[in-house]
């Protein structure tokens, strides 16, 4: 493992006792730090928690929050909740796909943008909704897509 990654990971692990219940919070913090979960990071976490690697991998692939490949600098999340669906969320998604040239789950070649869909952001009264990093944009229209991707 690169020393840089090792140092960053050790920094996270020092906050934990090594209990099984810490697995998800550790994975969350590691992803926050590295942007995704590199294989060597998951291996080191398994060792720290004294768990089989398959167990850590199993948890990492079960929850949609965890990414196993690098993601873009900006993450565009299009809400696919019910209220967004009945208010035309699919068309917003198509427009974002068109403008970024990628499908949900993909990242642009220049690693600038990743596109994801999310089951619901809970901002249903303002549907349809798009979230860029941590900013929520409500009452979206296809015309507003270009503005928020600038």
């Amino acid at each position, binding site marked *: 493992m690169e020393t840089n990654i090792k140092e960053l990971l050790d920094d996270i692990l020092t906050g934990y006792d090594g*209990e*099984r*219940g*810490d*697995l*998800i*919070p550790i*994975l*969350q913090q590691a992803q926050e730090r590295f942007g995704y979960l590199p294989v060597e990071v998951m291996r080191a976490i398994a060792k720290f*928690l004294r768990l089989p690697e398959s167990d850590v991998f*199993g*948890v990492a692939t*079960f*929850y*949609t*929050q*965890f990414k196993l490949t690098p993601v873009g600098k900006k993450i565009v999340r299009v809400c*696919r*909740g*019910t*209220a967004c*669906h*009945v*208010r035309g969320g699919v*068309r917003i998604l*198509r427009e974002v796909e*068109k403008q970024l040239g990628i499908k949900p789950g993909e990242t642009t070649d220049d690693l600038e943008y990743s596109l994801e869909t*999310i*089951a*619901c*952001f*809970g*901002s*249903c*009264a*303002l*549907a349809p*909704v798009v979230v860029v990093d*941590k900013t*929520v*944009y*409500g*009452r979206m229209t*296809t015309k507003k897509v270009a503005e928020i991707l600038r």
Partner: protein
Amino acid sequence: MAAFDEIGKRARAEWEALEHSDKPRIYIGTATCGRASGALTVLEAIKSELARHDIEAIITQVGCIGLCYAEPLVDIAKPGRPRICYGSVTPEIIPQLIEDYLINDNPRPDLALGTIGDGDVEGIPKLFELPMLKPQVRIVLRNCGIIDPENINHYIAQGGYSGLVRALGMKPEEVIEEVKRSGLRGRGGAGFPTGRKWEFCRKSPGKVKYLICNADEGDPGAFMNRSLLEGDPHFVLEGMLIGAYAIGATEGYIYIRAEYPLAIERLELALRQVAEYGLVGDNILGSGFGFHIKIKQGAGAFVCGEETALMASIEGKRGMPRSRPPFPAQSGLWGKPTNINNVGTWSHVSAILQRGSNWYAGHGSEKSKGTKVFALAGKVNHTGLIEVPMGITLREIIYGIGGGPPNGKRFKAVQTGGPSGGFLSADLLNLPVGYEELTEAGSIMGSGGMIVLDEDNCIVDTARFFLTFTQAESCGKCVPCRLGTKQMLDILEDITKGKGKLEDIDLLEDLARDIVVGSLCALGGTAPNPVLSSIRYFRDEYEAHIKDKRCPALVCSELVSYYILPDKCQGCGMCLRDCPSDAISGGKRMIHVIDQSKCIKCGTCLDVCPTRFNAVVKVSGEEVAVPSKPVPVTSPKSKQ
């Protein structure tokens, strides 16, 4: 409890000082809904405008009052006057509003929604007398949008934590009796009597017991928990403390979805505040009772809303449900007796202990007591968060509070209970809202999502939408759920593409029965509900898709066609230029024609055709007579 008397006194003094300040007060809703509508830029505009005029005012950031459709909301109160609530505020209007009201004393009734608090302002109605608020009974939401959720003193000044103090003065069994008497049933959706649930856990042998607050609000179309945690987090914490005392739990977890960063931030702050006040931790308020609370963030799995899956997730495992018994009250988190209630239930508990079970049971209907918070969204004018007494009719909610579908469209259905719930048709608008009533009608109370559909929404498409969701979120443990939902989804996909067969409807119902009986948890057990209820009330719409290859709502793209009407097209070239699949031919002053074999049904032509021409039509199950290739425009140039 002498320590709390002192805390209460200080809190009330702080609140009174704010309410009776000689400076103007400005309140702005900055919960997630407000922020998504631009509340933070409005806040900046207010600050810079106050500085420019050298006006000293107190700005308080509050949660969501529930009128999400009118966000951002700003209240202004001048000394001795009620708060005036202004809706749909923009940064551009702030300079004028501040000059008009704060400097020149013109309250701008034209921009105001209503007043909050004692006293009248000429020309402005009382906010809580308006049609969207009058039928509401605000027990859980009473502080949302009114107090600063980041200030524990504001909560205490409204009677907060008096319920905990009262409980600590009672025996744990008496607290359970009090909750039983209130008639409270779980607000997570299933409606199990809360007091009885607590009693099981209390009586379960074991020294260590856990208590969990389920804030993994996963239903798409639901945001009650988020709003409450952002707008009044202490209301939830107080309920947890009361429950822990009643059950005998020493440790508690709040399991909250990571998609709610602001709610998590506010909960963390609230937890630091209660620790500082000695309301959580060892020996709470000198009573000898100790309780600790931790926050656990979910990682994006809908199934973790199910209690056994949620506990597996806290234990650091894949969130997969297990069979019951043993029930969590016997063997839950780490094998210890555990009690789980959802955010809504905990806040009702606070209200019951603060104001008494008799008062609480005075609201609602015979079998469903109290109030219920709903997230009203979809095709309705007044989208937002509402709290209504149980027993109110769907009509009163959708038309009275919600103002009906926008643009005069026809109401088609209301969907309650999210992916576990069902569709209810217009014939059921007079149905009273209650656990039994909704279940009998083929839906469920659910956690509180309420999505209105109008004539432009396709029922089959929306049922398919829910199945897409549950199919993707099935954890995969039970075969009928894992494979059955996939089969149902495939059939629904076929129907929306015009490839369905009439016998598919029976097949869907057969599969649904198998999935319901063959699944361990409620995800599978309720996944077929949207399909079953939509077949029950909208069979004709399924048949139109299957027999006539027609989508009456013009939604299912493979069943719709676009045509350019020759008598309306002026040959302007807008659609020709924007068509992404080069399916349109034509030229200047030549009537444009869509090549149906190339059309990808994206609808761009309909969007870009200038409204003064309105030449593009969308149809399903019919053909429109158009020229086969572009011909010169013969109709006179329409007036610009």
